[in-house]
């Protein structure tokens, strides 16, 4: 009989601060499973971020340093340059990674830092209550775009995984989703690759994870996953945009 259990890399008394139905919980679990499977817990240093993921160090049983909003990749760079033998990763929201931190996120890729970046894209600033972010879709209503995102005044959503793939120092860049079991399995596979390129010293590994925010989208979890499928994936196509290990 198989018993469901927490990955060893998760804290035993871990209590998620995520809203019910939010995909963060799945993403964090996938990360913890991979830390177990690749036996990385004892050599991992996490640069945490600001946003819904701010308390990640309460969930994962690894060494961690908080980062000011957007600066996780700069901190991760400092950690890695000081201790190149460690496994160093960031876990950030789309606002943290691609708005306030776009320079740090991009330049770490340009420098081919042996780091892994994970970015949760839920098309909004979740923790502050659902404002327009860098990935908010055209037409999407948020608390700071109450009439919807007009391209004329708000501009366009950024395609993060494609942007990172353009950097020469990037070894792996992919976009995945968590709305179906098949997609969750693909997501884990992509995360494994993004971890492995760092371990192999090939450069920057990156995964953008399309995620739900039922609270701020004002949807049920099922409706939120429908939105991922019907509205997000057509704009943010899933796939691998760069992989230096493939021919």
């Amino acid at each position, binding site marked *: 009989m198989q018993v469901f259990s927490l990955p060893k890399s998760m804290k035993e008394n871990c209590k998620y601060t995520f809203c019910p139905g939010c995909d963060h919980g799945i993403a964090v679990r996938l990360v913890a499973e991979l830390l177990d499977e690749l036996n990385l817990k*004892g050599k991992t240093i996490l640069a945490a971020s600001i946003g819904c993921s701010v308390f990640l160090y309460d969930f994962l049983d690894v060494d961690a*340093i908080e980062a000011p909003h957007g*600066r996780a990749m*700069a901190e*991760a760079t*400092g*950690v890695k340059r000081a201790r190149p033998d460690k496994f160093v990763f960031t876990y950030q929201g789309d606002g943290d990674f691609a708005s306030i931190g776009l320079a740090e996120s991009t330049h770490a890729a340009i420098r081919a830092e042996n780091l892994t970046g994970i970015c949760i894209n839920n098309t909004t600033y979740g923790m502050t209550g659902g404002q327009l972010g860098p990935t908010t879709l055209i037409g999407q209503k948020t608390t700071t775009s109450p009439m919807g995102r007009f391209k004329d005044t708000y501009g366009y959503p950024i395609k993060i995984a494609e942007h990172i793939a353009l950097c020469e120092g990037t070894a792996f860049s992919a976009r995945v989703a968590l709305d179906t079991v098949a997609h969750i399995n693909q997501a884990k596979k992509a995360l494994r690759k993004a971890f492995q390129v760092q371990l192999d010293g090939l450069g920057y590994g990156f995964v953008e994870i399309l995620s739900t925010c039922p609270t701020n989208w004002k949807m049920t979890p099922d409706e939120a996953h429908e939105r991922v499928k019907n509205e997000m994936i057509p704009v943010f196509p899933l796939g691998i945009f760069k992989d230096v290990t493939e021919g």
Partner: protein
Amino acid sequence: MAEKQLLKGNYAIAEAAVKAGCECYFGYPITPQTEIGEYLSGRMHELGRGYVCAESELAAINMVIGATSTGAKAMTSSSSCAVALMQEGLSYACADELPVVLVNVMRAGPGLGYIYPAQGDYFQAVYGGGNGDYKLTVLAPSTVQECIDLTYRAFYLAQKYRNPTMVLADGLLGQMMEPASFGEYPYPEIDNSSWALTGAKGREGRAIYSCARDEDAQNNHIRHLFQKYDLIAKEETDWEEMNTEDADIIIVAFGSMGRNIKATMRELRAKGLKVGILRPITLSPFPSNRLNELADKCKQFIVVEMNMGQMIKDVKLAVNGKAKVDLINRPVGQWLSVEEIADGVQKILNKEVAYASI
């Protein structure tokens, strides 16, 4: 005694960092401190240590935060308007108790200002531009030899107290050449194994963060920081003073402005005025107690600084109304000469001006 060499201030700081065991340097170019990053780019590579041309000062200070969180000695250097960009990181580094070392070779401000020397960042360094209650440890060299000695001390104090420590130099000091010697790094190494991030091998994960959802925990943490600052003040406050025993007038200046006040003192003593000097070496902690003691005996303090009067406020707080405190200053540019300071002192004594802004 190690042999003296003719050294430029910026190179002195850079090589002192190497000799202090700095494992990583992160920086972004800005005049008048660029030589530090230029020198270290080659030197750190040669030694197999870490070096990154950061994409911004925001990134640079956060790279230092990352490196020091692992227990490594690391530093950045910058200047004035770009140190302004690092204030967020410094607030985090104080809250997270990280041994960050930062060198500010001051230029003129506000805004872009220009590359000539000034001392307009006293407030920025001592009172900070970041959020919340925190204090940096701030050391102010006045000679190229002190650029070396205080860079050594900055690494030591940062490690010993787990508090970001700034070497506050200025464009004059960064660019001038003087004979100085390195000697050996004179301080013991500090064991940081109880807190440094090394990977949670055989133990629980440890996290370094300042975010506290519990109000009591946050209050206690801030009180803990301030107990530490009190200890630093008790143990590490440092200054230089000359001829204060019989002085009626004490001239106070920091950094390279602390040089001309000595010659001014000699000139005025030759004219029969009982003049002494006090030069704070640590600006934070500030030698307030000593100034307060001296205020019992002397009648007049004159603060000389290259800004609109910043350190004078700390001198006034220290003197606490026991003696007159006046200012001789120029905001930026040509350093106040011995003649200008002496003339300003005479004017203040003759009550020709309330304060002698030149």
